[in-house]
């Protein structure tokens, strides 16, 4: 139920549209994702969020226990779902390169849908908030763990030359993050002629060529 604020007799409370609980929750997530993307976790107060949504803080706390809980809900809402990775694996032929490509496409599509996610990650890096950093770290860990493990298996089977699998994971993470920044956030004309997906595929091919056959002299 909506409780209008009754601060002064001569200032009528703002008229707030009555929304269902899921609609109200969605309105908080929508407003908060824009604000967190522009200003980071620390740069946004609960007061600012409720002002944008047009309700009192009490309404927000009925849906989210804290600002942290709202931030987590925004991340859960924006980021790709684990089911999507499961689907990518299920439909794959289980070949390392193909699974990596499918996973990368799932990940990439979540950023195309939600560029705010990338901005929130950048803010999180600068703010040093352990809780938010942990979330983003885990998102990349899905890739780095898979690369380390997958390349380790290929090495054991002598299908690829010896390689530092941990460094390879980092190389891939850096490459993918940079291409997302270049295509989704930065106003650069250097890669204007290439769409994100073919560019990601091109970099993935370069990565695979390196790990499959490069022997450093």
């Amino acid at each position, binding site marked *: 139920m909506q409780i209008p604020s009754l601060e002064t007799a001569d200032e009528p409370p703002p008229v707030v549209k009555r929304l269902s609980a899921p609609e109200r929750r969605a309105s908080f997530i929508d407003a908060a994702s824009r604000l967190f993307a522009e200003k980071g976790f620390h740069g946004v107060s609960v007061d600012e969020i409720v002002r944008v949504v047009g309700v009192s803080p009490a309404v927000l706390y009925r849906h989210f226990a804290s600002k942290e809980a709202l931030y987590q809900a925004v991340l859960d809402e924006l980021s790709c779902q684990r*089911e999507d990775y499961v689907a990518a694996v299920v439909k794959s032929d289980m070949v390392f390169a193909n699974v990596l490509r499918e996973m990368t496409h799932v990940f990439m599509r979540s950023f195309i849908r939600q560029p705010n996610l990338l901005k929130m990650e950048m803010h999180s890096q600068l703010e040093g908030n352990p809780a938010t950093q942990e979330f983003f770290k885990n998102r990349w860990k899905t890739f780095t763990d898979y690369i380390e493990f997958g390349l380790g298996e290929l090495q054991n089977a002598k299908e690829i030359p010896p390689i530092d699998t941990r460094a390879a994971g980092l190389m891939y993470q850096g490459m993918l993050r940079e291409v997302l920044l270049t295509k989704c956030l930065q106003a650069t004309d250097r890669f204007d002629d290439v769409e994100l997906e073919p560019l990601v595929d091109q970099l993935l091919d370069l990565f695979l060529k390196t790990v499959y056959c490069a022997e450093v002299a």
Partner: protein
Amino acid sequence: METQFNVEVDAVGLNCPLPILRAKKAVKDLSSGEVMKVVATDPGSVKDFEAFCNQTGNELLSHEEEAGKYVFMIKKG
């Protein structure tokens, strides 16, 4: 009574999507009706194996958690 199984997959210490990959490899060698046991430690694996079974037509007979380990029994469809 404990469920009997035909193959066991150790996915301890592995994160998404590695337990699913291992399970997919193992289930390929089973015949319809045979059971695979999967042991994992990733808390997200509960959701993952529910999705895996929904998407593959295999049946999740049970899942239990004990001392940070998740044990799944999956019957091949």
